[in-house]
C-alpha cells in the first residue's frame, strides 16, 4: 500500500544492506535522486539489477555500494565507457565486482516473468554466442509441443524496485508516460518499491485511456522529488541533459575527480538539490 513520505525515509525503510535492488528507467526517468540517497545512506553489498547500468550504477559501483551487477549493457549511451564500472571489472577497484551478464531480451523477459509470478522466463534467444558459456543461469528448455529448443533464465524477483515517474496522486496511484522501459514490470516483480515523482497532484491529469498507471496498492513508498531524474529526463517536464552525459566521461575517468564530484554533488547535498535542475531546464524550454 502506497505511503507518501520523504526520500530519506523511503530509502531507509525499503533498501537494506545486502538487498537485490533494481533501479530501472530505460534512458528515460532514471531515478538519479534515489540513487544519490542510497549512496548517502552508505548501503553496502547490494546486488544491482538493471538493463542499462548507466551513470547511476557507475556512481554506486565507484562508491563501493555494490557486490554484484546483473545487467545487459553497461555503457554511457552515445558517449562510451562507464569508467567506474570498467575500473571495478578490470582492476577490482574499489573492490571486486561479481557480474551476471545477459542480453536485453533476456532481462526484459526476466522482469516480465517476475511480474507474472513465474519462476523463469522462456524466449527464443542466446543462440550460438558465448554468453551462455560465462553465465551458468542461461539454460535451454525444449518446448513440449513443438520440440523447439528455447532459452530459459530465472525470473527477476528483486527485494526492491526503485523508479521515477511523472506523477502520483495523493493516494499514491502512479502515472508513467513516454519511453516506458521495464519500470512497471520491475515494480510488480519486486517485494518492495520506492517511486519518486516529479509532482504529487490532487487528481491525475487528463490522459490517454491506456497511460500506464500503477495502482496505489502495488507500490510502496511514493516521494515527490522534482527533477529527480536529472540528467536523465522526464517527458513533459525537462529534456535529457546530453551535455552532462558527455561531461561524466571526464569526471568518472579518474578516481580522484570522481570522488571530488561525488562529495560536492552527492554526499554534501540532499534530494532538494534536484529541483533546481528541473526548474532551470523547464525555464529554458519555455
Amino acid at each position, binding site marked *: 500500500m502506497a505511503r507518501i513520505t520523504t526520500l530519506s525515509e523511503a530509502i531507509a525503510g525499503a533498501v537494506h544492506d545486502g538487498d537485490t535492488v533494481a533501479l530501472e528507467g530505460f534512458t528515460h526517468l532514471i531515478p538519479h535522486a534515489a540513487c544519490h540517497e542510497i549512496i548517502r545512506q552508505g548501503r553496502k553489498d547490494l546486488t544491482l539489477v538493471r538493463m542499462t547500468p548507466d551513470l547511476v550504477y557507475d556512481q554506486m559501483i565507484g562508491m563501493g555500494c555494490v557486490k554484484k551487477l546483473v545487467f*545487459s549493457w553497461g555503457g554511457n549511451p552515445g558517449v562510451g565507457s562507464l569508467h567506474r564500472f570498467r575500473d571495478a571489472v578490470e582492476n577490482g577497484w574499489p573492490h571486486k565486482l561479481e557480474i551476471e551478464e545477459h*542480453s*536485453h531480451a533476456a532481462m526484459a523477459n526476466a522482469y516480465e516473468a517476475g511480474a507474472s509470478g513465474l519462476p523463469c522466463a522462456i524466449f527464443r534467444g542466446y543462440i550460438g554466442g558465448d554468453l551462455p558459456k560465462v553465465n551458468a543461469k542461461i539454460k535451454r528448455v525444449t518446448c513440449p509441443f513443438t520440440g523447439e529448443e528455447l532459452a530459459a533464465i530465472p525470473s527477476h524477483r528483486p527485494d526492491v524496485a526503485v523508479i521515477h515517474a511523472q506523477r502520483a496522486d495523493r493516494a499514491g496511484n502512479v502515472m508513467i508516460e513516454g519511453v516506458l522501459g521495464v519500470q512497471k514490470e520491475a515494480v510488480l516483480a519486486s517485494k518492495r518499491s520506492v517511486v519518486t515523482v516529479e509532482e504529487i497532484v490532487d487528481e491525475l491529469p487528463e490522459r490517454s485511456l491506456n497511460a500506464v498507471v500503477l495502482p496505489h496498492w502495488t507500490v510502496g513508498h511514493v516521494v515527490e522529488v522534482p527533477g529527480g531524474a536529472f540528467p536523465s529526463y522526464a517527458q513533459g517536464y525537462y529534456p*535529457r541533459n546530453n551535455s552532462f552525459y558527455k561531461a561524466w566521461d571526464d569526471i568518472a575517468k579518474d578516481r580522484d575527480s570522481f570522488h571530488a564530484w561525488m562529495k560536492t554533488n552527492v554526499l554534501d547535498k540532499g534530494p532538494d538539490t534536484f529541483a533546481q535542475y528541473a526548474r532551470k531546464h523547464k525555464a529554458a524550454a519555455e
Partner: protein
Amino acid sequence: MADYKPTEMMTIAAARMLKNDDICFVGIGQPSAACNLARLTHAPDITLIYESGTLATKPTVLPLSIGDGELCDTALTTVSVPEMFRYWLQGGRIKVGFLGGAQIDKFANLNTTVVGPYDKPKVRLPGGGGAPEIATSCGEIFIIMAQGKRSFVDKLDFVTSIGHVAGGDSRQKLGVKTKGPTKLITDLAIFAPDAQTKEMTVVSIHPGVTREQIQENTGWPVKFAASVDETPVPTAKELDVLRELHARTNRAHAAA
C-alpha cells in the same frame, strides 16, 4: 569529385542499402546516422524502430541515447521494452537489423563484450544489449564498422552475437532461420557473404581505395568477389543532408 571523408562515404553507402518499405531495428551511433540519412533522402517512408520501444520514429536530430525524448515525440507509438523484444523482435516483424561492433571476424560474428579474457579483460566493453537476439530474429543484418586491424580480427575474443558462425551452413544448423549479415559496410568497401562459404567478401570498393589498403586494415586474408564494383561517390545531396543532420544534432546536444 566531391570532397568527403571516409566515414561519410561509409554512412552514405550504408544508407543506400535501405529501401523505402523496410522495417528496420536501429542501433545507436553509425547505424542511426545511416538509417536517418536514408529516411531523409531516398526512403522517406522507412519504418525505424529503436529498442527503447519507439515504433516508426522520425527524429529531426540524431539521438545520443537509444531512448532520447526526440524518438518518443516523433514516434507513431511507444511500447514497453518487454513488448518490443517479445512481440516485435522475437515475433519476426522486423526485416533489417542494423548493427555495429568493436570486433568482427570474417564470418561477421561480432564482439561487443570484452577485449582479452572474459574473467580478466584488458578492456571491458559495454556488452551485448539487444544484439544477441537482433542478430538472429531480424530477417537480415547490415553491419557498419570502420576498418582496422584491431577491429577486423582473425579470431574474436568473445562472440557476443552471431553472424555466419563458422561459415557454410553452420548458422542454419543452429536452428536459425533468418539470413544473418548480408552486407558489411566499412569506410573502405562493401562486403557481402560468399554464397557457399559465407565468408564476407569484398563486392564494392569505395572510390580512391586500393585492395592493398583493404588488406592492410583487415586481420585475415581478404577475399574479393570475381567482379568488384566501384562504390558510386556521394552525391551533393547525400553529403548536404548528412552534414546538415550532424550539424543539427551537435547544436541540439550542446544546448541540452
